[in-house]
C-alpha cells in the first residue's frame, strides 16, 4: 500500500535546479534511505514534502490526498512527522511539555497531564525510546533529545517519519539503538524516510535506497540487491578511490599542550588536556560533537586562551595568544564553519584569500593594499587548487562548498605552516572535493607539518590518521597508533567509558 507519493517535484533557486522532476513512492512499513552528497537536494526535497518550500512543479500526495503546497500544518495533519538535523526543542521545558506543545486545545482550562504522560510512557516503552518525561530538556544528552523529537512525532500520530541525517550527532552505540527503534516502528506499520550520506548506515537500516545526485534521482535499488560500492558510485557518478597513505615518518613534537584547560566553547571546554602533535603525522581527534573539539580548535586558532596549562609551538611556549600570534607561529587554520568563520561571504575571492595576511609587506605598503599583488595571489590559488569560479572578483558566498574550502585551504597552506588545524575539513563536500582536501593534507604531512584532524566522520579519521585520540567531556584519551584500536573500542571511548589519558 502506498502511503506517500511524490510526483515530478522540481525546485529551482535561481539558475540552480535543486530538485529536478523527482518522483517516488513510499509503501507502508518501509524504510527508504535518501542517499546523496550534501548539496544533492535531499534536504530541499524533504522541505518541500513537509511544506517548508513551494515546489516549482509537482505535487505531494499522502494517503491518497494531495497536500496543499507550502503548508507544514497540512503535512502534520496528514500524519507526516519530521525530525530535523538541528533539534527544535525548548531547552527550559520538560520532555513532556515539549512533546505536548501545540497539541493541547487552547480553550480547555486544564491540561490532561496524566493522560499525556501515560501515552508518552507507553510510546517510549513500545519503541525503546527511553526518556524521563519529567526531565528538563536542557539536562538531556544529544541522543536523548533525538528520542524526544521522535516521540514528539509519534505523539502526534505520525504515520510517516522523516529523519534528516539522524546519526550525525550520535555515538556508534546510540546509532545502533536508533536503528532498533526504526525496526520497531516499521513493525507497527509506520513508514520512514531516512536521509543520510553514510553508506554503511544506509545498508544497515533501509529496505530501499534512492540516490540523489545534482538534484536528480539517479538510482533506485533494493538494499538487499546492492552494495556500498555500487551506491557510492551512483552517489558520486564515479568510482571512489581511498586515499593512498604512505608509511609514517614521525618528526619532532611541533605542538605540545600540557594540562591545558579552557572555557566552554560550543559545548565542553578542555579539561587538563595534554596532547603532542608531531611533524609528519596526522593526528585524528575523534569524538561526538560538543565534547571539547570546538574548544581545542579555538585554542589552536588563537581565538581562545588557555585558562590553565601551557601551550608550546615548535619548542617555544606561547604567551600573548591571539589569531595573529597563532598565524605568526606558523599555525594554519581550517575552521569548522567555512561560511560563518572561514570566509567573509560578501567580499570577493581576492579579499578573502588575503584576509590572514592583508597587513603583511606582501600585500600592503603604508596602509594601502596592493590589490595587484592580492589579485595575483588569488589567481595563483585558483589555478593551483583548481577552483571553479567566474573571476577573482566573485563574491565568495556564491561558490560551492568545495570551491570555498579549496580557497580556505589554499590561504591556510600558502605560508608553509608547521602546524595545521583542520576542523571538519570535508564536511558537506562532494567526493571529488573530499579526495582533493585529503590529498592536500597528506602532502603537507609529507612535507613534515604536524596536522590535527578534527572530524565527526570516524571513517575519515581512521583513513587518514597516523595517531588517533578520542575526546570526551573535554578530556582526551591516550593516543593510539594506526589500527591499534577497533571501531568498537573507539566508540566506547567516544561514549565516555574507558580509560582516561
Amino acid at each position, binding site marked *: 500500500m502506498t502511503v506517500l507519493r511524490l510526483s515530478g517535484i522540481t525546485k529551482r533557486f535561481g539558475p540552480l535546479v535543486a530538485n529536478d522532476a523527482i518522483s517516488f513512492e513510499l509503501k507502508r512499513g518501509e524504510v527508504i534511505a535518501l542517499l546523496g552528497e550534501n548539496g544533492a537536494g535531499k534536504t530541499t526535497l524533504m522541505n518541500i514534502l513537509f511544506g517548508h518550500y513551494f515546489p516549482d512543479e509537482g505535487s505531494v500526495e499522502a494517503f491518497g490526498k494531495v497536500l496543499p503546497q507550502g503548508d507544514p500544518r497540512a503535512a502534520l495533519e496528514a500524519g507526516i512527522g519530521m525530525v530535523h538535523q538541528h533539534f527544535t526543542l525548548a531547552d527550559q521545558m520538560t520532555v513532556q511539555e515539549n512533546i505536548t506543545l501545540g497539541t493541547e486545545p487552547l480553550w480547555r482550562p486544564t491540561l490532561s497531564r496524566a493522560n499525556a504522560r501515560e501515552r508518552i510512557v507507553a510510546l517510549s516503552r513500545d519503541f525503546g525510546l527511553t526518556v524521563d518525561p519529567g526531565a528538563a530538556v536542557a539536562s538531556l544528552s544529544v541522543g536523548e533529545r533525538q528520542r524526544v523529537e521522535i516521540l514528539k512525532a509519534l505523539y502526534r500520530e505520525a504515520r510517516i517519519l522523516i529523519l534528516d541525517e539522524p546519526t550525525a550527532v550520535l555515538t556508534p552505540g546510540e546509532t545502533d539503538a536508533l536503528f532498533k527503534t526504526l525496526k520497531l516502528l516499521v513493525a507497527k506499520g509506520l513508514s520512514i524516510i531516512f536521509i543520510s550520506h553514510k553508506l554503511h548506515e544506509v545498508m544497515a537500516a533501509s529496505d530501499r535506497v534512492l540516490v540523489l545526485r545534482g538534484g536528480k534521482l539517479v538510482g533506485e535499488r533494493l538494499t538487499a540487491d546492492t552494495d556500498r560500492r555500487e551506491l557510492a558510485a551512483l552517489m558520486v557518478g564515479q568510482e571512489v578511490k581511498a586515499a593512498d597513505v604512505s608509511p609514517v615518518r614521525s618528526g619532532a613534537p611541533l605542538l605540545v599542550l600540557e594540562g591545558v584547560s579552557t572555557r566552554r566553547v560550543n559545548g565542553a571546554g578542555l579539561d587538563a588536556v595534554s596532547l603532542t602533535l608531531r611533524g609528519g603525522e596526522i593526528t585524528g581527534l575523534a569524538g561526538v560533537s560538543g565534547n571539547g573539539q570546538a574548544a581545542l580548535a579555538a585554542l589552536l*586558532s588563537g*581565538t581562545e586562551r588557555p585558562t590553565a596549562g601551557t601551550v608550546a609551538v615548535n619548542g617555544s611556549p606561547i604567551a600573548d595568544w591571539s589569531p595573529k600570534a597563532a598565524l605568526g607561529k606558523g599555525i594554519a587554520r581550517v575552521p569548522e564553519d567555512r561560511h*560563518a*568563520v572561514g570566509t567573509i561571504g560578501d567580499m570577493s575571492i581576492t579579499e578573502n584569500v588575503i584576509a590572514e595576511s592583508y597587513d603583511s609587506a606582501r600585500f600592503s605598503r603604508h596602509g594601502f593594499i596592493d590589490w595587484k599583488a592580492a589579485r595575483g595571489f588569488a589567481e595563483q590559488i585558483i589555478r593551483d587548487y583548481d577552483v571553479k569560479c567566474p573571476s577573482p572578483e566573485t563574491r565568495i558566498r556564491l561558490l560551492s562548498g568545495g570551491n570555498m574550502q579549496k580557497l580556505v585551504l589554499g590561504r591556510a597552506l600558502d605560508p608553509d605552516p608547521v602546524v595545521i588545524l583542520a576542523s571538519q575539513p570535508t564536511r558537506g563536500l562532494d567526493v571529488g572535493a573530499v579526495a582533493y582536501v585529503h590529498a592536500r593534507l597528506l602532502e603537507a604531512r609529507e612535507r613534515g607539518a604536524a596536522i590535527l584532524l578534527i572530524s565527526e566522520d570516524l571513517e575519515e579519521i581512521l583513513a587518514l590518521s597516523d595517531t588517533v585520540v578520542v575526546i570526551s567531556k573535554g578530556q582526551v584519551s591516550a593516543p593510539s597508533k594506526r589500527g591499534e584500536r577497533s571501531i568498537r573500542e573507539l566508540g566506547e571511548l567516544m561514549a565516555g567509558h574507558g580509560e582516561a589519558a
Partner: protein
Amino acid sequence: MRLEPKPAPSLVMLLLYPVGAIVFTLVFASLLVLLAGASPFSVFFLVAKGAAGSQFALFETLTRATPLIFTGLAVAVAFRAKLWNIGAEAQLYIGAVVTVVLGTGALPLPSILLIPLIVIAAMTAGALLLLGPALLKTRFGVDEVVTTLLLNFIVLLFVSMLLEGVLKDPMGLGWPQSQKLIAEARLPRIVTGRRLHCGFGMALVSAVIVWVIMKKTTLGYEMRAAGNNAEGARFVGIPVNRVLMKTALLSGGLAALAGFSEVSGLKGNLTLDLSPGYGYSGIVVAMLAMLNPLGVVVSAIFVAGIFVGADAMSRSTGVPSYIADVMVATALLSMVVAILLARFRVRWR
C-alpha cells in the same frame, strides 16, 4: 508570507533598486499631491525647476547638499562597519559649537591657520562624541542605536543651554544665537553673489578621500570585513573592536564637518535651527547611495534638490513643502524594501 534567499543581483539590477525606490516615491507623492488638489505633473515639474531650473536654483541645491554629503558620508562609513550611528545630528552640532568657540575671535590668526585648526578641532570633538557610544557597545554590549539617538537630544539641549548662556550674543537682541564668526574664520564663497561656499568643495574632497580609504587601504578593508562578518574577521586576526573605534572616530569627525561648514560657510553664527535634521537625512542619503562614498554625493544632491525644489514649488502652488519630507522619508523606506528584495524573494501563501 515567507522570505527565501536569492542569488546575488547583477550590476544593472543594483542600479535599478535606487531608481525603483525613487519611482515608487514619486507615485506615492503623486497621490498626496492629488489630495492637496494639485496636478502631480505640474508639481513635480515645479520641484525640478526649483531644484535645477536656473543657475540660482542649482547653486541653492548644491549649497543644501553640502551638509548632507558630510552626514551621508558619516553614516555610510559607520553603517559599512555595522556601527549604527544615528547620532550624526549631535556630532554636527558639536562641530558647530567648536567652530563658534574658536572662530569668534578667541584665536586671532590668519585664515590659512585658523580654518585648518578649527576643522581639526571640530572633527576631534565629533569623533570623541561618537567614541563614547562605540566604547559602550564594544565593552558592555550597549546598543549604539539607542545611545547615539538619545545623544542627539542631549546635545541639542546642551547647545540650547550654551546659546542661552555663555555663547549668547550680547548684541543679539535676546535671541538664542551666538556671536558672528570673525572674517578669518569664514569659508569663502565659490561664486560671488551666490550662497555656495567652499564647504561644498571640502565635501567633494572628503567623499573622494573616504572612497579611497574604503577601497584602497587596510583600514577600509578591516572596516568592510568587520561589518560583513565580525566573527570571520576576528578569526583571521582583524582587531574588530579597535576597527569599530576607528570607524567611530572617522564617522563622528565627518558629521562634525557638516556643522563646521554650515556655520563657517553659510550661516556665520550658531542658532538652534542650524540643521533641519541633516543628521537624520544623512541616513537617507547613505542608504540611497547603498553606502558608496561617491554615490553619497549624487544622492545628497538629489535629496537636497527635493527639499529646495519643494520650497520653490510650495510658494507657487500652495501644496505644503512638507511634501519634501514625505518624499524623502518614503524614498528611505522604499530603498530599505528594495535592498531587502535584492537579497530575498518573497513568497505569498
